[in-house]
């Protein structure tokens, strides 16, 4: 059976119509039973937010600011049908802006003729060289985990794939991994800023990505986005979104997830149950584990700035420079350590594990009927507050899955260890002063190996207890080889070498990079410190 996304264009208009109808119905009840007041509230909120945004960005002259200002003055005098008309029009505009396309030709091109595209990415002019690159790509990215089960579930259920997010390359890498693992293509929400990269933008526009404009903070837009995602899931389109919301600035695995889009999976399932459609929806947590992160330097800088949140949307990082991307990819190809994409155990929309047959399971392995979560006295009930709470609990289950499936690579391992030693060497410096320093500390290799062995022993125990995953070489290679691999990897890409090796020591050049990569182990910091005490 064709993946639903392959036929997306045929249903695009119909989907948009349904989104608009649902959203307008919803907006009519926003402020209670009176539609007039509800419409006024929604339009006022949109106008206020847009006027502030456009004034901040000084986009006067383009006409948008003036149009919103005009509307804001008129809202109080409008009749209910006029307000509804305005809301319908703007909702339709936003739905049209959000909705993606799916072009089978581009999909075929992207999946079977990918070498040409990748060739461009690697700046190779020779097709054969491009083909070699693709083969290398397969050996450079390891896709592992519960792939067989996820593939089976996709046959009769709808997947909502929720990966960790550390780089703008994530959506490309995920698209590739889905195809490589024999999984159906997913529609996904991508920040509008990503479409500015011409090559990536072309693929995104034509491979089912829908555009999310994170500058728009008003409920009119946010609810259109939620209904769009919900309608797609309801209709059986496999979906992907990054619940971290934005790339991890500190290098840590996301623990606080944004639940807006994840909530659409529960809403979609509730809608299905109401229509007696019991087709299941599955949440698939995925961890993307890079030995090197393309934008590490920009991200950690942003993390350190007080105004980090103000730069929530970074549009001038490494990803926007094609030459940097190609340089990075070429370097990653030359690494000994591969990138790992790990598919975790699938969950139902309430965060319960599911068995091989797709049935939800209780903690003791008892099969559950998932639709019962919506019942009260045997009747299906609509309770948005309850469902919001269910979403929060599912978010917690996903965050726990991220920890279990985080793959610790040599760069994370050495990053944590060296940064911990740096802090011990400079106890008088606060964290930020230390991160801003150029260090220059020498770490004797014999002592370092001794500490590394102790940390590794603990990590192995944690892996045995299924609390994290270790990259095979971290577990089994001689410790000096693990350290050597990490040092070599840092040196492959980052301009300012994080660490340099001398005869019998490692010299730290950039604590920030160590902090960034070491943060992958942050959830286990206390235990690790105890192991070294």
């Amino acid at each position, binding site marked *: 059976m064709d993946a639903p996304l392959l036929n997306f264009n045929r249903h695009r208009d119909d989907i948009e119509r349904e989104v608009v109808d649902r959203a307008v119905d919803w907006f009519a009840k926003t402020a209670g039973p009176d539609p007039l007041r509800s419409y006024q509230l929604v339009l006022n909120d949109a106008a206020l937010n847009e006027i502030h945004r456009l004034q901040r960005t000084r986009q006067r002259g383009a006409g948008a600011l003036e149009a919103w200002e005009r509307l804001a003055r008129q809202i109080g005098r409008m009749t209910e049908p006029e307000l509804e008309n305005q809301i319908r029009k703007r909702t339709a505009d936003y739905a049209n802006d959000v909705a993606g396309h799916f072009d089978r030709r581009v999909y075929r091109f992207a999946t079977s003729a990918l070498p040409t595209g990748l060739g461009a990415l690697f700046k190779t002019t020779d097709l054969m060289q491009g083909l070699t690159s693709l083969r290398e790509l397969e050996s450079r990215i390891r896709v592992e985990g519960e792939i067989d089960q996820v593939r089976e579930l996709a046959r009769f259920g709808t997947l909502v794939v929720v990966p960790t997010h550390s780089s703008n390359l994530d959506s490309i890498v995920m698209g590739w991994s889905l195809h490589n693992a024999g999984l159906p293509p997913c529609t996904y929400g991508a920040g509008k800023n990503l479409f500015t990269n011409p090559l990536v933008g072309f693929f995104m526009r034509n491979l089912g990505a829908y555009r999310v404009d994170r500058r728009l903070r008003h409920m009119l837009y946010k609810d259109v986005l939620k209904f769009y995602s919900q309608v797609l899931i309801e209709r059986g389109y496999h979906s992907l979104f990054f619940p971290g919301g934005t790339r991890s600035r500190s290098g840590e695995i996301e623990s606080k997830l944004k639940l807006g889009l994840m909530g659409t999976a529960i809403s979609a399932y509730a809608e299905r149950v109401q229509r007696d459609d019991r087709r299941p929806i599955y949440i698939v947590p995925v961890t993307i584990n890079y030995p090197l992160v393309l934008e590490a330097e920009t991200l950690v800088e942003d993390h350190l700035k007080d105004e980090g949140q103000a730069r929530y949307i970074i549009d001038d990082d490494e990803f926007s420079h094609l030459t940097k991307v190609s340089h990075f990819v070429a370097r990653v190809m030359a690494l000994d350590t591969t990138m790992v994409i790990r598919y975790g155990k699938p969950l139902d929309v*309430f965060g*319960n594990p599911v068995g091989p047959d797709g049935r*939800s399971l*209780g*903690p*003791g392995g*008892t099969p*559950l*009927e*998932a*639709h*019962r*979560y919506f*019942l*009260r*006295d*045997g009747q299906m009930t609509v*309770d948005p*507050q*309850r469902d919001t*709470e*269910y979403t*929060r*609990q599912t978010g917690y289950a996903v965050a726990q899955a991220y920890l279990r499936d985080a793959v610790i690579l040599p760069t994370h391992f050495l990053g944590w260890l060296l940064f911990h030693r740096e802090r011990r060497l400079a106890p008088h410096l606060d964290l930020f002063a230390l991160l801003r320093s150029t260090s220059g500390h020498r770490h004797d290799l014999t002592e370092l190996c001794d500490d590394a062995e102790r940390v590794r022993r603990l990590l192995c125990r944690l892996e045995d207890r299924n609390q994290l995953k270790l990259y095979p070489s971290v577990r089994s290679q001689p410790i000096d080889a693990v350290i050597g691999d990490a040092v070599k990897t840092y040196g492959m890409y980052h301009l300012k070498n994080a660490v340099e090796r001398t005869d019998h020591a490692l010299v730290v050049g950039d604590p920030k990079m160590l902090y960034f990569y070491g943060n992958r182990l942050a959830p286990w910091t*206390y235990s690790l410190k105890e192991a070294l005490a």
Partner: protein
Amino acid sequence: MTRWGLVGDGAWGMALARRLAANGCQVTIAGENAYHARLPKGVVHTVDVRTVLVDHERLLIALPIGNLEGFLTGAEPYLRGDHRIVSTCRGLTPKAHLRGTEAIARLTAVRQLAVLAGAADASALKRKSPVALVVGTPFSDWGNEVQTALSSNSLRVYTNGDLVGVELANVVAAVVGVALGVARAMSVGPAAEATALTRALAEMDRLVGGLGGRQGTAYGLAGLGVLGEMAYEGKGNSFKAGTALAKGSLSEAHSFFEVREATRTLAARVSLEHLRAPLVDAVASMMEAGTTPIEALADLMHRPVGPEVG
């Protein structure tokens, strides 16, 4: 008429069953203690827990915390997504050191959970003293339902969205209450007792915040309410255990088994989560390591002084 299933037929379970029945609920209570007790109209007793679980989606669990994990392991196959549970279990589980609802969430598929806490006990309900309890749950519909089902002219049931905070405040109060008992028995004077009370509250607030609850919840019925009852009444098991410690009778203090367990499990959880809890540590040290109250007080007084809040 709403139907409720109760698990645990001790004094507290029976008092709550009566309260529910008085409000027109149909109650089936399961347990092995009260099968011969005189039951009010609307309450049926059974020893068959399975039937209670299968037939009722509204459940109230009034078991000692030590029995909870065993009960849940057996109950897991019968608990479904539409079950809603309110727990009155006080303390942390003996092995995993989990809150009651935390254990329910971990060992069963039930999501809609609530906790009932506060100073009122079975005898206060029986006497119809004017008292209050708090039901903590993030599920507002479920919280409102519990509130309506239990409230009366003499019992006010408040709702609170901070389940974790309510449940933890109740546990921490049982432990820091020991310190209040010690202070009273040592006759340290009203100023010192007031100091102990305020520092106990600050510690309770910090622990609630550190373990996932909201700061401020400790000042409600489940925290300050319980401490206030102890301080005014000068009774309560925690207070009595503290009195025994002050007298130097460790065996008598250990006879308050639930208080000793609450102390042991909370100290272990606090240590696991790397939180600062000097009063809890002091009580644990008196209970388990034989530290005398004088030594414990000296340790507390010699710590570096910091800001009052934080």
